[in-house]
């Protein structure tokens, strides 16, 4: 169970907005997060991952305090080890597909399994600049999966994938999430993006 109660100021024009969220997410559940542009959807994921500090709040994951602004507790992103898929992919330009996954895991079988799910097994020696947008996005997902995350945070993860590729990829990801009992939060502005996944929905609106 993940319990979140945070408050974070957002830069906005004009003035300032406040992202205020109090929510609970069941273990192994999938939640689709939606809301208008600039509502703070990406910021919300970054707060959970420990990449952005909120002004106030508490995050509990399986009864472990990840963040508590009152007691000034904040576990580092390295220790939280969430699987994070960035909206801009954040791939490492100096690494090939294989090296991206080996940077995270030394389990060759696990890496091969991920490559097959992402249909990137024939592109292992390619660097990101030589991959298409869809291939880059799949690599970003596989890299985040490589740490076997208990919590997966995905920011517009399927936006560059064609419907066929998406329908082939999602069952593979789902089977791994079931296996690892991963809780998944997916930010998406596209209502059809999560076809094929049973997901709870959550709307974010800043104050």
């Amino acid at each position: 169970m993940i319990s979140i109660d945070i408050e974070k100021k957002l830069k906005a024009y004009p003035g300032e907005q406040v992202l205020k969220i109090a929510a609970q997410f069941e273990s192994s559940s999938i939640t689709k997060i939606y809301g208008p542009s600039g509502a703070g959807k990406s910021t919300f994921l970054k707060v959970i991952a420990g990449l952005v500090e909120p002004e106030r709040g508490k995050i509990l994951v399986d009864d472990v305090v990840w963040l508590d602004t009152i007691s000034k507790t904040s576990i580092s992103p390295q220790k939280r080890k969430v699987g994070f898929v960035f909206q801009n992919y954040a791939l490492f330009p100096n690494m090939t597909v294989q090296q991206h996954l080996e940077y995270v895991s030394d389990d060759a079988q696990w890496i091969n399994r991920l490559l097959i799910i992402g249909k990137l097994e024939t592109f292992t020696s390619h660097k990101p600049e030589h991959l298409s947008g869809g291939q880059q996005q799949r690599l970003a997902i596989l890299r985040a999966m490589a740490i076997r995350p208990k919590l997966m945070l995905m920011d517009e993860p399927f936006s560059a994938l064609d419907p066929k590729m998406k329908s082939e990829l999602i069952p593979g990801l789902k089977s791994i999430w079931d296996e690892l009992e991963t809780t998944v939060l997916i930010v998406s502005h596209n209502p059809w993006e999560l076809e094929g996944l049973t997901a709870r929905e959550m709307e974010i609106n800043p104050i």
Partner: protein
Amino acid sequence: MDLTPIWLTLKLAAITTVILLVIGLPLAYWLSKGRSIAKIILEAIITMPLVLPPSVLGFYLLMAFSPKHGIGEWLHNTFDIQLVFSFKGLVLASIIYSMPFMIGPIKSALQQLPLSLSQASYTLGKSERETFIKVLLPNIRASVLTAATLTFAHTLGEFGVVLMIGGNIPGVTRVASIAVYNSVETMDYNAANIYSMILFCITFAMVISVFVFNKYKAKSPLE
């Protein structure tokens, strides 16, 4: 024809570049992360040699490291180290004088990398140090090469600072730029021409190699 000043210059430039690489990489990384008053002041101090007349910098270094004053006296009495009119003094002066050429390009390149690269690495459980070595550094390789080359080339051409702190001692502190001046003073234009031509060719070859390596996109010293 005495080629000692050329070897001495190359030795000085190589030592300065290596030391500045070791100091410059972590320092540029620290400066590239956020802003604070301390960082602004330190960056201003590092940049000063770009705008300050070399003779002024050399004068203050001469005063600071003179065995009769402050730090110089302490170094002399405690460790028996004399920096003025010695090769060690030249190395120290060159490090200070060439520092902006090492720090500037590396800091700028680090700031241009998307923040999400480090963030992605942190979420994968990697430390800041590992992220710097395996993710950030390989992606600013061209800028590091530019910085090292500019530092080396700039050290080759030092004159005012090295003359002030090192003087003109043959085989010890008489580097190529001073040998050119010395040759002109003694009306030996042939020697001055040879020293100048060697310096010109070395620096030209280095700048060309940076342009080629960076695919014709060499960075300016302050980028």
